[in-house]
């Protein structure tokens, strides 16, 4: 509904405004609904014609406005329109109207501010700029300045018809600033020709407070200088190329470098392949350069995204020849196979095999593997694998090569020193772990048809005999198992399993009647005697002791070994001391008995002990006794005599002396003389010495010989006559 209809109805009622109608009829600008209804009732009774109809309509509107609370807004709008009519007449006219009684009264009733000056100013602003029509021109000025556009800000101010004094001051400042900008732009322009960096610096300073279009144009015109000294080198083993350069002289703007790769020639901006993003540093790695081709690199300086016209280029080509990767060698019994991954660009592979001291041999190879047949078993070879590349010029390049050791597979070796002991249901098995492979022990109820050293497939071991019921995980060279005691004999066979083959050890018979010998120990007790001690095995009537120089006796019937039997009584009374020749001996000890009319043996236990090299020494006077002082004119000089007791060459010894006490070790006295080792075939060495340094020392002077430093612990020196070692 427009207010024009209301104004027409008011005109029919001879009212200038709704405000005057309300004052006339209701004496207030805020009648209530009841007052409006009363008036309608009165109107029906007293009025007629158009006036009646017009007022009835007006009352109806009035009732709606009251109910919706819009009456105040309608009245204030009516008042604003009345005031705006006076605006073209100027501030004074508006103020005078606003100060009229009817207006001030209405403003008071409507609870609006009633200051005449404020009212006039507000009306004039609203009439000039409109109410709610967007930011003011001042806001636009501020926005232009914030966007570093002083020229736009000045234009806005100058477009206003009237300016406040403050606006005029701002206008003047902007005019000065723009003049300065123009001056600096002219100077920068003049610098471009001979000092573009200085020109850009000037542009940059201007741009800090005025966003001049010319700055962008200047950047386009003033390209950065190119870097210098570009070099490229491959990184050994990594298949990468690192490009380094000296920085550009360009200083202004955001300076970075763009590196381009080219094949066969230095790349241009248009043809080169960029290697990664522009770099801020002076180094960039080409992570994935193509292999086997000559590579050149160009480095451009980039300023604010605009590359330099020229570039620094690498002078020489770089060619990378990556090695094969994931090289794996697998040894067969008489062959070695190798596989690898061929790098991109490589066309073939060269494989060379070598051994210690042997001549290198080239091995036929495919691009991703080889098989080298006809090799010696259990030999380790060194294989060198080089990738081959073909350059565009047709030449062949080789990579540095990858080396790996691979050997033909070792055959499994039978287990040695395998000892099984059964006590009750407790089975204990020990062995000397083989150098290669694992050990699987199998149980048999009868003597197996196997001999030591038999080779069979590893798979077949599982179907041979039966497994043991282990008590805990087996150790390295030892396992414990429980074995049902059924009064029968059993056999155990140790298998050395290596890859897909297994070697049988010597079958070992188990007999609970002859338990193993435990606590076996051998100890050298001086001279050529070794003392053996052990825990007597259960109720065994005898123990057999066998020994052999070097390795263990092969069994109770080894002809090369020496054997002695001990009863419990003889062992208890006399022990088991055996005299041996010089050298390391291995002893085999087992229980033995006559059972069922034949000699049977318990599981053997072995131990090693050696007899040291032995030599006797003495101190004597030189020369025949009868010549004595007559010949020498003084006491005959002394000599140290060292004599072998076991046929070996006498060792080098040192003679040490100490006053009143026997020296216990070489450091317990003063060294007098050291003999040299005897020559081959000599069994006696004589060395003269004197005791001049002990003149005046307390007596007796007691001498002892000790092995020379290198042979301490390996030689036993026996004094021939201790009285000769006391010098009084």
């Amino acid at each position, binding site marked *: 509904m427009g207010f024009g209809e209301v104004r027409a109805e008011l005109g029919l009622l001879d009212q200038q405004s709704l405000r005057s109608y309300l004052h006339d009829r209701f004496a207030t600008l805020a009648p209530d609904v009841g007052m409006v209804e009363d008036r309608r009732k009165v109107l029906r009774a007293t009025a007629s014609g158009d006036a009646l109809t017009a007022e009835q309509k007006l009352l109806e509107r009035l009732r709606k406005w009251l109910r919706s609370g819009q009456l105040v807004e309608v009245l204030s709008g009516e008042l604003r329109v009345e005031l705006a009519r006076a605006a073209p007449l100027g501030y004074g006219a508006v103020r005078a109207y606003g100060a009229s009684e009817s207006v001030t009264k209405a403003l008071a009733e409507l609870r609006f501010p009633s200051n005449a000056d404020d009212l006039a100013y507000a009306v004039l602003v609203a009439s000039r700029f409109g109410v709610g029509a967007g930011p003011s021109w001042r806001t636009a000025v501020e926005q232009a300045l914030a966007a570093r556009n002083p020229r736009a800000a000045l234009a806005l101010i100058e477009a206003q018809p009237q300016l406040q004094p403050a606006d005029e001051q701002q206008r003047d400042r902007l005019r000065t600033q723009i003049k300065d900008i123009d001056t600096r732009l002219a100077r920068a322009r003049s610098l471009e020709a001979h000092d573009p960096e200085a020109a850009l610096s000037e542009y940059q300073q201007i741009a800090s407070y005025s966003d001049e279009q010319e700055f962008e144009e200047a950047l386009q015109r003033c390209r950065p200088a190119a870097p210098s000294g570009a070099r490229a080198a491959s990184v050994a083993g990594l298949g990468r190329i690192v490009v380094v350069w000296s920085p550009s002289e360009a200083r202004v703007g955001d300076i970075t470098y763009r590196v381009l790769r080219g094949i066969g020639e230095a790349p241009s901006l248009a043809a080169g392949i960029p290697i990664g993003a522009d770099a801020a540093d002076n180094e960039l790695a080409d992570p994935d350069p193509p292999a086997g081709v000559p590579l050149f690199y160009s480095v451009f300086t980039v300023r604010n995204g605009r590359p330099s016209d020229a570039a620094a280029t690498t002078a020489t080509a770089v060619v990378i020849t990556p090695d094969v990767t994931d090289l794996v060698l697998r040894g067969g019994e008489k062959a070695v196979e190798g596989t690898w991954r061929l790098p991109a660009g490589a066309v073939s592979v060269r494989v060379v095999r070598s051994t210690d001291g042997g001549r290198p041999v080239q091995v036929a190879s495919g691009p991703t593997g080889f098989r080298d047949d006809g090799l010696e078993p259990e030999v380790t070879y060194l294989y060198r694998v080089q990738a081959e590349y073909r350059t565009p010029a047709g030449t062949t390049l080789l990579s540095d090569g990858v080396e790996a050791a691979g050997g033909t597979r070792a055959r499994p070796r039978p287990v040695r020193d395998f000892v099984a002991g059964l006590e009750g249901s407790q089975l204990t098995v020990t062995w000397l772990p083989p150098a290669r492979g694992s050990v699987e022990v199998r149980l048999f109820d009868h003597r197996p048809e196997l001999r030591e050293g038999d080779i069979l497939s590893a798979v077949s071991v599982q179907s041979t005999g039966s497994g043991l019921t282990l008590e805990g995980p087996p150790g390295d060279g030892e396992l414990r198992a429980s074995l049902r005691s059924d009064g029968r004999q059993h056999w155990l066979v140790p298998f050395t399993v290596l890859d897909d083959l297994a070697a049988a050890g010597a079958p070992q018979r188990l007999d609970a009647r002859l338990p193993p010998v435990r*606590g076996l*120990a051998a100890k050298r*007790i*001086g*001279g050529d*005697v070794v*003392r053996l*001690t*052990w*825990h*007597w095995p259960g109720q065994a009537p005898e123990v057999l002791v066998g020994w052999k120089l070097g390795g263990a006796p092969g069994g109770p019937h080894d002809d090369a070994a020496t054997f002695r039997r001990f009863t419990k009584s003889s*062992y*208890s*009374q*006399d*022990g088991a*001391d055996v005299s041996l020749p010089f050298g390391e001996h291995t002893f085999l000890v087992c229980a033995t008995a006559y059972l069922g009319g034949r000699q049977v043996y318990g599981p053997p236990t072995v131990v090693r002990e050696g007899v040291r090299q032995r030599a*006797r020494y003495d101190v004597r006077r030189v020369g025949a006794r009868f010549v004595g002082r007559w010949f020498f004119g003084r006491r005959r000089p002394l000599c140290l005599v060292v004599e072998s007791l076991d046929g070996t060459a006498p060792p080098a010894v040192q003679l040490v002396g100490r006053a009143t*006490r*026997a*020296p*216990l*070790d070489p450091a*317990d006295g003063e060294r007098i003389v050291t003999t040299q080792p005897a020559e081959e075939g000599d069994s006696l060495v004589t060395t003269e010495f004197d005791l001049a340094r002990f003149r005046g020392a307390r007596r007796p002077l*007691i001498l*002892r010989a*000790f*092995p020379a430093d290198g042979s*301490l*612990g390996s030689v*036993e*020196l*026996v*004094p*021939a*006559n*201790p*009285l000769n070692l006391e010098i009084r």
Partner: protein
Amino acid sequence: MARSLSCPFCWESIREQNLERRCPEECGLAEDPQLTAFLERPTGRAEMRPKSFKVSAAKGKGLCPHGRRAPQMQICPSCHNDLEHDYVRSAGRSRPIALIGASGSGKSVYVGVLVRELRTRVGSDFDGLAVEFVGDSSRSHYDKVFRVPLFEEGVTLRMTDSIRVNRRLEPLLFTLKFTSRQRRLRDRLDLAMMVFLDTSGEDVLRAEAMSRLARYLDAAAGIVLVVDPLQMPDVREAVTTTVYPQQATRQVDVVERLGALLRQQRGLGPDKRLDTPLAVLLSKIDTLEAILPDQSSLSRHAEHAGYYDEADGLLVDQEVRSWIHRWYGEGFVNSVDANFSTSRFFGMSALGTAPSTDRKVDRAGIRPRRVEDPLLWLLARFGMVRRGLKR
């Protein structure tokens, strides 16, 4: 000519004619004050025995004063202990060897093992050397105190064992019987009577002149002093073993007191050295293996093949003297030399290996080392075995 002998119990010197015998039990029992005093019985616990009478007072056919046949066993007139017939008969050739050593030094194990070694291995090397106990008492003494615990039960001897305590006053008597070295007397045996009395070093420190212990030591033809290296503080720090001693006696004090006691007993001045040969025996050398030098003579076994190896003995003597000097100081060796004109140092291990912490000997058996050396040295000095020097 009337012979005299020393009672192996009270060590009083007795003329043979003064020996006594006892009446048979039919003659009745009476308090025996001498035996009661010897056995140190408390008051009111007197030993009751048949009465005694002098052998020379016996009536014809050995009848007692009551006219009854008296037992043949002779008794010491001083302490009234029984004297075995063989002891009395061979007392003139008796060579008592006194063995002393600090508590826990291993002297009892040493005796137990020595006797067995003499009866087995050493006996074989010495042309049938036989070892026989004198009387049932010594045999029983050896069996119960030494043989059964060591060789059957496999445990070492403890100072607090009740059997040892009860028998501490009883001497262990055994005779060594050698074939005579004189060709014309091949049918005759040379005898050496060995007397072992469990005597600790602490007893020596407490003993007074004229006491029973002083008489025992005075009567000894040779003395073996057992020295426990583990009672030397430096050694105890240097080795690891299961047999650390519970107490330590200053060995040098024992030597000095021993010398003073014997000089006093014999009426000698302090400027006189004793002529009784002294064997200083370093025990438990198996525990010293870690600190014995590479060329140690103690690590070698001795080869006394029918004679005492004098060269080996000299080497061991010099080495042990040096060893004690290094680990225990000069005082001990000097004290020995100052008190005894004849001494020699030895080393031995009676068991061969240290027992476990619960006193069990090694299951591999007892493997003694050099236990016979001191005895053979003394026997060689007595002229009972030959000695060899050159090797």
